C-alpha cells in the first residue's frame, strides 16, 4: 500500500520519527499538503462552530462597550485625574507585546535556521496580526474622542498645526501603523505559495476563485521562488530591528516621562524582553489547542513544545533578575520617590497583585527545569496561561502603582477598574479568539511549503 494514503500519525507508527523528532521519518509531499489542508476543506466540526459562536458573543460585548464609551465618554472607566492610564493603556501594551512576539519569533527562528520554525511561524504571525490590530484599537479609545485621532497624523490643515514630534505618543502612532502594515506584508508573503496550493486543491468553484485571487497567480517558477526568498529573508532581517523599535517606543511612552519608576533607561529593552516572554507564552497557550483541534500532532510535536518551554524558562529567569535589579536600581539611584514607590509596590494596596505577578512570571516557568513538565501538555498550558496573566498584571501594575504614588504625596490616589473596564478587556479577548478561529478554518495553520522543504532536507521526502 502506498504511503501517500496514510495520515501523519500512521506514518509515525510505521516509520518512526526523524532524528530530531520533528516529523515522521517518511513523509511524502502529498501527505504534508493533505495534513495541513485537510483541516480547511473538512466540514466545520460542531466544536468549532460552538467556539466561534462563543467568541462572537465576546465580539458583541466588545462592540457594546465601545458604543457605551463613545456615548458616555471615558467617565465610565475607573481612571481619575491622577491615574490617567488605566486598563486601556495596559491592554494596549499587553496586546502589542503579544503582537510583537509573533513576528519576532518567526524572524529570529528563520534567521537562526531553527528547523522547527515551519510548523509554528504561520499561526504565530496570525497571532501577531490580530493582537496588533486589537492593540491599535485601545489607544484610539483611550484618547476619548477617537473620531479626532487623525489629528495625530501630519497633514497640511486649515489650523496650520503640525504634530508634536518630541512626544513619544506621536512616535507610537507611527510605530503601530508601520508595524501592522509590516506584519500584514510579512504574513501575506509567506502565505502566497500556500494559497496557490489551496487554489489547486479546492474542489468548489467559489473557493478556487477566492484562493486564486489571493494567490495572485503564483505558479512556483524558479524566478518567483528566487524573488520570494530574496524578499522573505530580507523581511525577516528587517523584522527583528523593527519589532525591537516598536516595543521600545512603547517603553518610551513611559520612560520619556518624569514619573518615579518610569524614567528608566532600561525600559525600552526591558519592554522588548517582556513582549517576547508574553508572546511566547501566548504561542504555547494557543499551540496546545490548535494541534489537538486540527489534528496536527505529526507536524507540531512534543519537541516543538519542549523547545518553547525552554525559552519560557529563560524568559522567566531574565524577568526575575530584571525585577530584582529594578529594586536595587531604585535604591541605588536614591530618589525618595523611587524608594517609596518600591515599598508601595510590595506593601501598598496593590501589593497582593504584585506578589501574584512575581509568582506567575518568575516562579511558574521554573517548573520547566524538569523535562517531565516541558513535555506535559497540561503543565505547559497552565504555565502558559499563568505567564499571560502575570504579564498582564505587570502592565496594569506599571500604570497603577506609579500614577497612584507619584512625586507629590497630596496627589496619591487609588484606581479601581469599573465593570466597563473589565467588559472591554473580555471583549477584546472575544475578538481575538473569533479572528483566530476563523483564521484556523480558512488559512493553513502551518507553512506548507516550508514543511515540504524541511521534509526534503530531513530525508522524509525526496
Amino acid at each position, binding site marked *: 500500500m502506498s504511503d501517500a494514503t496514510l495520515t501523519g500519525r500512521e506514518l509515525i507508527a510505521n516509520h518512526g520519527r526523524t532524528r530530531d523528532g520533528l516529523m515522521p521519518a517518511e513523509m511524502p509531499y502529498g501527505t504534508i499538503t493533505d495534513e495541513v489542508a485537510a483541516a480547511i476543506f473538512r466540514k466545520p466540526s460542531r466544536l468549532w462552530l460552538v467556539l466561534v459562536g462563543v467568541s462572537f458573543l465576546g465580539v458583541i460585548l466588545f462592540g457594546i462597550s465601545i458604543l457605551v464609551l463613545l456615548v458616555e465618554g471615558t467617565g465610565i472607566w475607573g481612571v481619575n485625574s491622577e491615574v490617567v492610564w488605566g486598563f486601556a493603556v495596559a491592554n494596549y501594551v499587553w496586546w502589542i507585546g503579544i503582537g510583537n512576539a509573533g513576528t519576532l519569533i518567526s524572524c529570529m527562528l528563520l*534567521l*537562526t*535556521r531553527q528547523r522547527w520554525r515551519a510548523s509554528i511561524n504561520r499561526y504565530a504571525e496570525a497571532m501577531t496580526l490580530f493582537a496588533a490590530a486589537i492593540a491599535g484599537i485601545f489607544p484610539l479609545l483611550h484618547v476619548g474622542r477617537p473620531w479626532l485621532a487623525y489629528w495625530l497624523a501630519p497633514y497640511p490643515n486649515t489650523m496650520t498645526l503640525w504634530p508634536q514630534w*518630541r512626544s*513619544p505618543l506621536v512616535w507610537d502612532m507611527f510605530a503601530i501603523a508601520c508595524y501592522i502594515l509590516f506584519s500584514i506584508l510579512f504574513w501575506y508573503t509567506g502565505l502566497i505559495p500556500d494559497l496557490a496550493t489551496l487554489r489547486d486543491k479546492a474542489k468548489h468553484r467559489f473557493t478556487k476563485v477566492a484562493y486564486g485571487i489571493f494567490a495572485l497567480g503564483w505558479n512556483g517558477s524558479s524566478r518567483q521562488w528566487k524573488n520570494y526568498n530574496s524578499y522573505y529573508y530580507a523581511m525577516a532581517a528587517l523584522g*527583528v*530591528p523593527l519589532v*525591537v523599535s516598536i516595543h*521600545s517606543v512603547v517603553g*518610551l511612552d513611559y*520612560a*520619556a*516621562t*518624569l514619573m518615579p519608576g518610569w*524614567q*528608566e*533607561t*532600561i*525600559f*525600552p*529593552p526591558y519592554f522588548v524582553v517582556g513582549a517576547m516572554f508574553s508572546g511566547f507564552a501566548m504561542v504555547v497557550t494557543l499551540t496546545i489547542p490548535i494541534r489537538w483541534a486540527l489534528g496536527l500532532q505529526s507536524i507540531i510535536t512534543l519537541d516543538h513544545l519542549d523547545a518553547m518551554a525552554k525559552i519560557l524558562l*529563560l524568559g522567566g*529567569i*531574565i524577568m526575575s*533578575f530584571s525585577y530584582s*535589579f*529594578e529594586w*536595587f*536600581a531604585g*535604591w*541605588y*539611584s*536614591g530618589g525618595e520617590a523611587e524608594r517609596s514607590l518600591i515599598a508601595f509596590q510590595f506593601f501598598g494596596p496593590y501589593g497582593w497583585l504584585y506578589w501574584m505577578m512575581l509568582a506567575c512570571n518568575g516562579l511558574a516557568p521554573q517548573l520547566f527545569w524538569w523535562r517531565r513538565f516541558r513535555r506535559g501538555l497540561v503543565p505547559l498550558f497552565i504555565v502558559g496561561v499563568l505567564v499571560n496573566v502575570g504579564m498582564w498584571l505587570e502592565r496594569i501594575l506599571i500604570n497603577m502603582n506609579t500614577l497612584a504614588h507619584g512625586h507629590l504625596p497630596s496627589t496619591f490616589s487609588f484606581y479601581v477598574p469599573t465593570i466597563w473596564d473589565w467588559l472591554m478587556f473580555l471583549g477584546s479577548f472575544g475578538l481575538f479568539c473569533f479572528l483566530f478561529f476563523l483564521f484556523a478554518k480558512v488559512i493553513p495553520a502551518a507553512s506548507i511549503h516550508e514543511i515540504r522543504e524541511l521534509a526534503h532536507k530531513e530525508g522524509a521526502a525526496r
Partner: protein
Amino acid sequence: MSLAGRFLRHVRAQPPQSQRLFAILALAAVILVILAAEAMAEAYLAAFVLAISAGMGASVLLHAHRLTGGFWGEAARPTLEGLAATVPFVSIAGLALIVLQFAIYPWIGEGALSERPAVASLYLNPLGFGIRLVFILALWSAMAVSAAGLAFVNRIASGLFLALYAFTVNFAAIDWIMSLEPHWASTTFGALFAITQIAIALALLLWVDAGGEARPRDDLAKLTLASILGVVYMTFMQFLVQWSGNLPEKVEYYLLRGSVLWQGVLILSLGAAALAFVILSRTALRQSRSATRFAGLVTLVAALLFLWWEMAPTFDNALGVVFSLIALAAAAMAMIAAAKGGGRSRSRSSDESRRSTAARATGGAP
C-alpha cells in the same frame, strides 16, 4: 590539558619580538607607576575592562553555543576557548583594583556621597567594592573555565552560568564603570556592558578569521552585525531617555561628554560602527575573508573608542585620559594575540576534532 599548560602554550606561541616588546612595556609601566600613579591606575582599569570583556564575551558565546548549537560555534571554538582561557589570568590581574580603587573612584572618602548615605554605607564603599570584585571575578573565572571546556561541561551548567552572568554583569558595570560618576545612574548600563563584551569578542573572531570557511564566517559576521546594532541601540535609548527627562543629575553625563574632543570620539566610534555595519550587511562581502577581517578590526576600534568615551571623560588628569587610550589599545592587542593563539591551536588539533566530529556523526543519538 591543564590551565597552566594552556597558558604557557599561548605565551610560547607568541613570536620572540612580541615577547621582547612586552618586557619593555612592562618596564616602562613600572617607571610610570612611580611617576604618575593616578593616571596609571586609571589606565589599568581601562585595560582590565577591555581584557575581561573580550574573555567574557567569548565565554558567553561558548555557553550560548553549547545550549543552541550552530555551525559558527564549531568553527570558532578554538579561538573562543583561547579567549575564554584568559579570563582567570585577567581576573587575577583585576584583583589589583582592590588597592587601585583608592586612586580611581570619586566616591571614596568622607562625604563624597552625602546625598545617599545608605548607598555609601551599604554599597559604594571600598570594602563592598573589594568583596564584589572578588566574588564576580571568581564566578566569571569559573564560567570561563567551563566555557573553555576544562570543567563543569554540561548544558545545565551553561544555563546556570549564563543566568548568573546576566545578574552579575550589572554589578560589574556599576562598580567598575558607572561608579566613576557616582551621582549618575542608568538602569540599562549593565545590559549595555554585556552586549559590548559580546561585540568585542565577535570583532576579535572576525579579525583573526576564526570562521575559516564561508558559512561559519557568514554566521559570525551576522552575529557581529547584531551585536553592533545592540550596542548602538542601547546607547541611543539611554541617551534618548535621559535627554527627554532632562534631569540635572542625569544629563550631567552627556554635558561632561559635550566637549569637542568627546563628541569627536563618539562620532568616530559611531562612524566605525556604521562602516562595519555597511560591510557586514552585504551578503557578498560577508563571504570575503579580507572584508570580514577589516570589518572585525573596525568593530574592535569602535568598541575600544566607545569604552574610552564611557570611562575617560571622568578622569580629571589629562595623563590618565591619554594613558587609558594606550592601555585600551595594548589590551586589545593582547587579546588579539590570545585569539590568534587559540586559533593556531586549532590547526594542531583539527585532525583530532575532525575525528571526534566524525565519531559524533556516526555515533547516533547525542
